[in-house]
C-alpha cells in the first residue's frame, strides 16, 4: 500500500534507458584543406637518460587532436598539422613538462610562445624548435606530517614561557644600563607605569566600604606609600644587576 503510494507520488519515472545513438560531435572531414606542417622540438629531463623515460611519453597537440611520439634521443616532430594556434605539451607519468603555445601561419611560419589562457594574445617568445625541460617529477602525494624540533618550540605554552625569559635575560645585556641618560629614560618610562597617586585606588575604596574605616585606612595609606617604591626597587634590581 505504502509502496503504491510512493509510486503514485513519483509520477514520471525518469530513470529511463534512452534509446539514442549518441550523435557524434563535429564530423571532421579528413580531407586536408591547405598545407600541413609539423611541430618539432626536443624534450630534456635533466639528470636522466632519455631511453629511460621516452617509452612512456607522448606529445599532445591541443589535447588528443594530434598525437606525436618521442624519438630515442628525446626529440619529437608532430606531423600533419594545419595552420592555427595550438598548445603543445609533453606528457609523461613521471615528469612534469610545461606546455608551450605554437602558432602556425598559413604560410608555415612557426612562432612559439608561453601559454597564457587569460591574456591569450600575450607574446613571450620561446625558442623554436621547441626546447622543453622537465620541471621536476610530478607530485602526486601529500607529505605525511613529520616530527621536528620546531614542533616543541611552536607550542604556545612554551612560547609564553620561553620568550619572556629570553627578553628578560637578553634585554639588559643589549641595553647599556650604566649610561646616565639611559637611566633617566628608563626612570621616565617607569614613572609612566606608576599609577597616579592622586587617583583613588579602587581596591582601597572597596576595602574601606566593607570593613572598618580607621585601621584599614592607616594600613592602606602606608602600603600605598611603600608600594610604588617597592615596585620600582624590584624592577631596578632586575635591570641594574
Amino acid at each position, binding site marked *: 500500500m505504502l*509502496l*503504491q503510494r*510512493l*509510486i*503514485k507520488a*513519483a*509520477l*514520471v*519515472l*525518469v*530513470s*529511463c*534507458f*534512452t*534509446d*539514442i*545513438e*549518441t*550523435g557524434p560531435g563535429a564530423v571532421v572531414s*579528413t580531407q*586536408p584543406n591547405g598545407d*600541413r606542417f*609539423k611541430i618539432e622540438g626536443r624534450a630534456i629531463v635533466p639528470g636522466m637518460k*632519455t*631511453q629511460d623515460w*621516452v*617509452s*612512456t611519453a*607522448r606529445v599532445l597537440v591541443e589535447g*588528443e*587532436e*594530434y*598525437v*606525436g*611520439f*618521442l*624519438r*630515442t634521443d628525446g626529440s619529437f*616532430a608532430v*606531423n*600533419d598539422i594545419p595552420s592555427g594556434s595550438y598548445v603543445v605539451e609533453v606528457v609523461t607519468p613521471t615528469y612534469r613538462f610545461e606546455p608551450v603555445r605554437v602558432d602556425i601561419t598559413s604560410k608555415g611560419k612557426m612562432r612559439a610562445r608561453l601559454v597564457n589562457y587569460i591574456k591569450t594574445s600575450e607574446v613571450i617568445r620561446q625558442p623554436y624548435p621547441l626546447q622543453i625541460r622537465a620541471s621536476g617529477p610530478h607530485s*602526486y*602525494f*601529500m*607529505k*605525511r606530517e613529520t616530527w621536528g624540533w620546531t614542533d616543541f618550540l611552536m607550542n604556545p605554552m612554551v612560547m609564553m614561557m620561553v620568550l619572556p625569559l629570553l627578553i628578560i635575560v637578553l634585554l639588559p645585556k643589549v641595553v647599556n644600563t650604566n649610561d646616565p641618560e639611559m637611566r633617566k629614560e628608563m626612570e621616565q618610562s617607569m614613572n609612566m607605569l606608576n599609577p597616579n597617586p592622586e587617583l583613588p585606588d579602587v581596591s582601597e575604596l572597596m576595602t574601606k566600604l566593607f570593613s572598618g574605616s580607621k585601621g584599614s585606612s592607616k594600613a592602606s595609606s602606608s602600603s600605598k606609600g611603600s608600594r610604588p617604591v617597592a615596585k620600582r626597587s624590584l624592577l631596578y634590581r632586575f635591570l641594574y644587576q
Partner: protein
Amino acid sequence: MAKLILLLLKLCILFFVVHAVFEDQVGKFDWRQQYVGKVRFSHFDTQMQSSKKVLVATESNVFAALNTRTGELLWRHADKTGPEGNIDALLHHAQDAVLVVGNGRMLRSWDVNIGGMNWEILLDSGSFRSACLVGQQGTVKHVAVLKKTVISVHYLSNGHQKWIENLPESEIVDYQTVYSGGNGQVFVLGIVPHSHITIVVYSMEDGEIIKQVSVEAPWLSNIPVSCVVVDQGMLMCVDSTTMSINTLDLHQQLQMTQIPLQSLGLEVDPDFHPSLVSHQPNPAQKPLSEFFLQLGPERFLLLQLNNGQIVTLRDFKPALLASFATTGEKTVAAVMSPKNKTACSINLFSADTGRRLLDTTLIFTVDPNGGKPERLHVQAFLKKDDSVGYRVMVQTEDHAVTFIQQPGRVMWSREEALSDVVTMEMVDLPLTGTQAELEGEFGKKADGLMSMVLKRLSSQLIMLQAWIAHLWKLFYDARKPRNQVKNDISIENLSRDEFNLQKMMVMVTSSGKLFGIDSKTGGILWKRYLDNVPSNAAFKLMVQRTTAHFPHPPQCTLLIKDKDTGLATLHVFNPIFGRRSQVTPPALPQPILQSLMLPLMDQDYAKVLLLVDDQYKVSAFPSTKNVLQQLQETASSVFFFLVDSSQGRLSGYRLRTDLSTEQVWEVVIPTEVQKIVSVKGKRPNEHVHSQGRVMGDRSVLYK
C-alpha cells in the same frame, strides 16, 4: 557515462573509497591493470637469444611490447583513437618495427628495445594497400609502401624517401599487393576483377619499371585473399569455382598454369572459401616452397612446390589452425587440432618433409567460458640438442591472449576484452551467516515479547559460536608454517566484510564477455563469454535482485540490443558466481525501444523490468500473476518518454492496464533547425527525487 567508465578502466583504477593520498598508501587499497586491446598483428622479437618480448599491434590503435615470461607490459604507445590512428601494417626487422598508421597517412619506425621512436614520416595521400620490407643480397635496408595510386620506397634507417612512382593505369587496375624476393626487384600485383592480373616490376635502385605484364585470370577477384607468393617468385592462387590452383611465375610471366585439385586427390569442402598461407622468414630471401592450403574449416594441407609440381606433404584432418615458425635455419609448421570437447593439441611438423617432430605435443585447454581459438602465433627456438622447442601464443575469439609452454602449462594469460568495458555494476557480496541472523530480526512482524527475547538470545549464541570459530581458526593458522596458509580469495568463501566495502564488480565488455572482478584485489573471479553478440551491440546491465534477500539468489539482467536491427536478447545471471540463472528470460521477437526498471518487486523480491517494443506494447519480466496485478494497479502512474533523434521527435506515453501504451504528448524539433545529439535521464541509482538540483555554489537550479 560509458566513456567515463572506459577512461577509468583504461588508465587506472583506484579503490573507490580511499584514494592513495600519501605515498606509503600506494598499493594497499588500490590496484591497476593495463590492457592493450584485441591483437591484430604480433611478432616475436627473436633478435637475441635473451630477448624475451613480443610486439603486438592492436585494434585499439595501441602498439605495445609484452614480456613473454610474465605477460606484463614493457611499454605501450597509444595513438589517437579513431581511424586516423589505426595500425594498418606491422613489419619487424631486427631492432626496428615499422608501422603504417592511419590508412597510409604515416610511416613510423620504433626501436623495440628502448620503446622510443626512430623516425616518423608523413606519406602522400592515398589509401593504403600493402607494405613490405625490401631486401637485397641478404640485408634489408628499405621498406616499400603501396597505396592506391603510388608506390614509394623508403630507407629503413631514417625513413627518407628513396623514390616514389605513380602506378600505371591506376584508375582501372586495383593494385593490391607488393612483394619482394630479395633480388633487388619489387613486384606490384594489381587486378582488374574477373579480367586479368597486372604485374609491374620495379627496380629497387631507382624505381624504373623493368617490366609490366598483364596475365589473363577471369576467375580472380581479390589477390590478398586467394593468392600467395611461394618459392622463387611463384604466385599461387586457389580458385574455388574451378577447384584448382593456378600458378604463375612472376619472373617469366607467361601464363597461369592451372593445376586442378582433383589431380592431387583433393576436394574443397562445400561452401568454404579455400585460402593459402605462405611464409617468408627473411625478407631478403625467397619465401619457403612449402605452404598451407585450407580446404575446409577443419582441414589443412601442407603442400610443396617442387619444380613446378605440387606435392602433398601432409594432410591434417581435423585441424583448426596452422602456422609456420622459423628459428635459425629450421622452419617448422605448428598445427592445432581438436582432441576432445575441451582441449586441443598443438604439434610441430618439419616444414620440408611434413614429418611430425617427436616430443612436441602441447595441450591447450579451451575454456568453456571463453571463446574458440582464433589465431596461433608460434615462437620457436633451438634447444641445446639442436631440436626445436617452441612456445605458442593463442588468441581466442573473446580477445584473450594465452601464452603456453610445453607440455601445456599456461605461462600467462591476458584478458584483452577488459580494454573496452562498456558498463559495470558494483554488487554487494552475500551476507555471512551471522549477518543474516542479525538481519532476520528486522522486517518480520513482532510475534510477542517472549519470542523476540528468544530470537535475540539464539542469534547472540550463534554469533558467539561464529566468533569462537574465527578465533580458533586464527590461532590454528598462526601455528601452521606460513607457506601452508592459503590466503587467496576464492569464489566460494566470498562474503561481505565489516563495512561492506569489498564488492563484486560485474563488468560488461564490448566483445560480449562478462567478468566478475573482486574490488579488493582486482582478481578475476569469474568470466563468461556470450556467443552471438552482434558486433554493433548496446548493453544495459541491471541488478534485479541484490544479495540482501537470503534464500533467493541475486540476479542481474543484461539487455543486449543490436543497434542495427533493434532486436534484443536478455541474459539473466547470478552476479556472484557468473552462472546463468534458473529463470528463463522471455523471448523478444520484436525490436525493443526502451527498457525501464521499476521499484515494484515480485514476491521473490526481484524488481520488475518493463520492455517497450516498437509496436508500443509493453512486456514485463518477471511476468508472474503477482507482478501483473501490481502493474495493473499502478499502470496509470507509469509514464515513458521516447526520443527519435533522426526525426527529432519526443513523445510521451502512458501505460494502460492491459500493458499497451497510449501517447500522451508529442514534441517535434525539426531536424533542419537543430539535431538531437544525446539524451540523458536521471541516474538509475539516484536517491533524490526532487525537481531541483543543488549546484556547487549552493544555489538550486529548477527546471
